[in-house]
């Protein structure tokens, strides 16, 4: 696919809209500073469409202009789905066939995060976007630990339940809480298990970057709009296909 530019109302015009606050009283200089920032971002010309003094020493700006950057979709790295989407029926069958026992999933929100709606959407029967949650799968045993589970509690529960997969949700991202907590979690599992025995680690939340599985030390990252079916299919695929040493999720070039 060839390179593209942002599109305002004409092909190639490169137009974008930008807004931000600068910690400076409103003045001509402040507006100039706003243009300077826009220029540094590659916007030229940059038009300050709106400048609003806020409180003391702050000004909010809306800037319009053309960026001269080119976008090359062919170099974009995305995590392509590298597993087949299974119906609950197929998933159950696959588990029966290769494990000959129910597959155990332990899930929860770690750290101080109490946003359970996301993980519940994946785990609870009720499900999400019309798909039933993992609890609906006959061959899955789901243990939902709920909110604000500490990492030791999580490892402990995984051990007790002999978890095949551990599902962790992180919604609060302020000060990168989600990244810190996830790293802490994966480290703890590496601590507690020999590499080959460690359960499959899956983390999800609306503000994760799917390509970060490697850095975070987990097997997969799911983000906005994930459906239970995708998660079940992934788990089943990874745990029922001939066991390979855990490589972090592969990121591939778009075609």
């Amino acid at each position, binding site marked *: 696919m060839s390179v593209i530019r942002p*599109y305002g*109302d*004409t092909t190639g015009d490169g137009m974008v809209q930008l807004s931000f606050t600068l910690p400076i009283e409103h003045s001509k200089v402040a507006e100039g500073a706003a243009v300077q920032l826009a220029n540094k971002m590659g916007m030229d010309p940059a038009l300050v469409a709106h*400048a609003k003094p806020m409180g003391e020493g702050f000004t909010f700006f*809306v800037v319009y202009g053309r960026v001269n950057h080119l976008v090359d979709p062919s170099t974009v790295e995305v995590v392509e789905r590298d597993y087949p989407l299974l119906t609950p029926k197929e998933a159950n069958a696959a588990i029966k066939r290769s494990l000959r026992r129910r597959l155990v999933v332990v899930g929860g929100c770690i750290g101080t995060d109490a946003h359970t709606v996301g993980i519940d959407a994946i785990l609870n029967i009720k499900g999400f976007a019309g798909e039933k949650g993992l609890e609906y799968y006959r061959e899955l045993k789901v243990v939902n630990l709920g909110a604000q589970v500490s990492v030791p509690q999580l490892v402990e529960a995984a051990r007790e339940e002999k978890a095949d997969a551990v599902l962790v949700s992180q919604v609060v991202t302020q000060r990168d809480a989600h990244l810190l907590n996830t790293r802490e979690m994966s480290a703890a599992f590496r601590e507690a298990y020999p590499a080959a025995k460690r359960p499959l680690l899956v983390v999800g939340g609306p503000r994760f970057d799917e390509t970060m599985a490697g850095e975070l030390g987990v097997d997969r990252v799911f983000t906005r709009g994930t459906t239970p079916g995708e998660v079940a299919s992934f788990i089943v695929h990874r745990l029922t296909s001939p066991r390979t040493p855990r490589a972090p999720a592969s990121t591939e070039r778009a075609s």
Partner: protein
Amino acid sequence: MTPPTRRTGSQLGLASADVRRARTLARQVGKPIVDLATRHTTVSVERATLRLAGLGGADPDGTPWVNRLADAVRADVGLEHGVSLPVWDALLRGEADDLLTLAQKAAAGSVTFGIPEGKDATRATSASRKAVGAGIKQIDRQRTARERMIAKVGDAPSKPWIYLIVATGDIHEDIPQAQAAAREGADVIAVIRSTGQSLLDFVPEGATREGFAGTYATQENFRLMRAALDETSRELGRYVRLTNYASGLCMPEIAALAGLERLDMMLNDSMYGILFRDINPIRTFVDQRFSRQVHARAGIIINTGEDNYLTTADAIEAAHTVTTSQLLNEYFAKEAGLEDWQLGLGHAFEIDPEVPDSFRLELAHAMLARELFPDAPLKWMPPTRHMTGDIFKGYLLDGFFNLVGALTGQGILLVGMMTEAVVTPWISDRDLALQNVRYVMNAAGKLHEDFHPAPDGFIANRAREVLGEAVGLLEEIKADRTVAGQPPLLSAIADGTFGLMKRPADKGRGLDGVARKAADYYNPATQILEGEA
């Protein structure tokens, strides 16, 4: 078009006597203008007639053949007789086999025109009438085609119709954007014209790609866009209407082209060109009447431009000038043969949002228009003047504009753009704007059931006040005698009554294109359109 939901009785407590009085005054003020118009013709009216007779195209430097031919005729015998008799006389004399050849020879200076008399005149008359009649039949066919297509693919699903603007300046960018807009929910697409076209005394030719802040109105651009929208209409299962501007110096010709290419609506205001383009008042009123007769015949809905006043005058102080202009536009329209369902009378949400109760004032004004013109598909226009670079505030304001539309049963809703104060609409602006309309209509579309302004409350009182001021203004105008013998409305326009613009009757562009009709003036188009034997 299904008539707008009509509320029984007056929610605003308007006295029907006042309403009648207003209409009577509008007629009294408008009639002298109509008489003036019938006494004159213009170069553009004559060129429109030639276009109806099938003369199109342009010479190598882009001057349309209708201009070359009309100019040649005028040079020889003047404009006061109309071009039809001299032209078809020349053809009958065998100067050329067809209009195009005649125009080319005339351009080369190798024909001289004269006024036929007696038998020759009669033959020229019927020949021209036959030729022009063919064009008008084509307009009739297009009207039927529209009705058939609507019957076949279906009409816009609900009111108000969602009206969206495209304005890239390049017809080949306009088309995909218009189709995208239609898919996103637009019922009406308006292709904005390039700035300045209204001042051209000719209609450009062919597909164009280089307009400023708009795309040139040309017959080919009309054809291309209508064809694209027909395709999209079939795809979507609803007829998507196309709009352009019958205004400026070529109003009659553009109206004719709109009829021939099946445009569905045309912006066509009785005074916009005078006030906002400094076009001579007489030129405008003459062109106006002809173009409205064409629109009436073509089943085209006109959109008037009262919104524009509020971009130069204050929306509260000048509210009654909007009502006055609506009444005049209604009179001129009906006189030209347009029916209620063809009257897209304009009004706009232009009150300064800082004004206390601004939203309720907008409601009062919108309901007044709704009650005065219960069967007209009012065109409700979004905030523009008080839109700023604060696109968030702008998006909110457009939402409340949409809410007034829902609460007052508007027929046509021009979708506001959050970037109004910044750029001509981007593709994303339109998409966001439509989402705004959808939310408001879906979430609060039926709120009017719960909305009942108190008979003597803020809203009803304001509405009655505005109607009163409009009646007062019409009375003033009617009484205006500043120039003896001149229709009082012309004097009022000269005094800056509308949009604060002062436009004297003997000034402005295009006056030289006006001629008082001679006794033997003949124009087959007018004759057919006015349904004479």
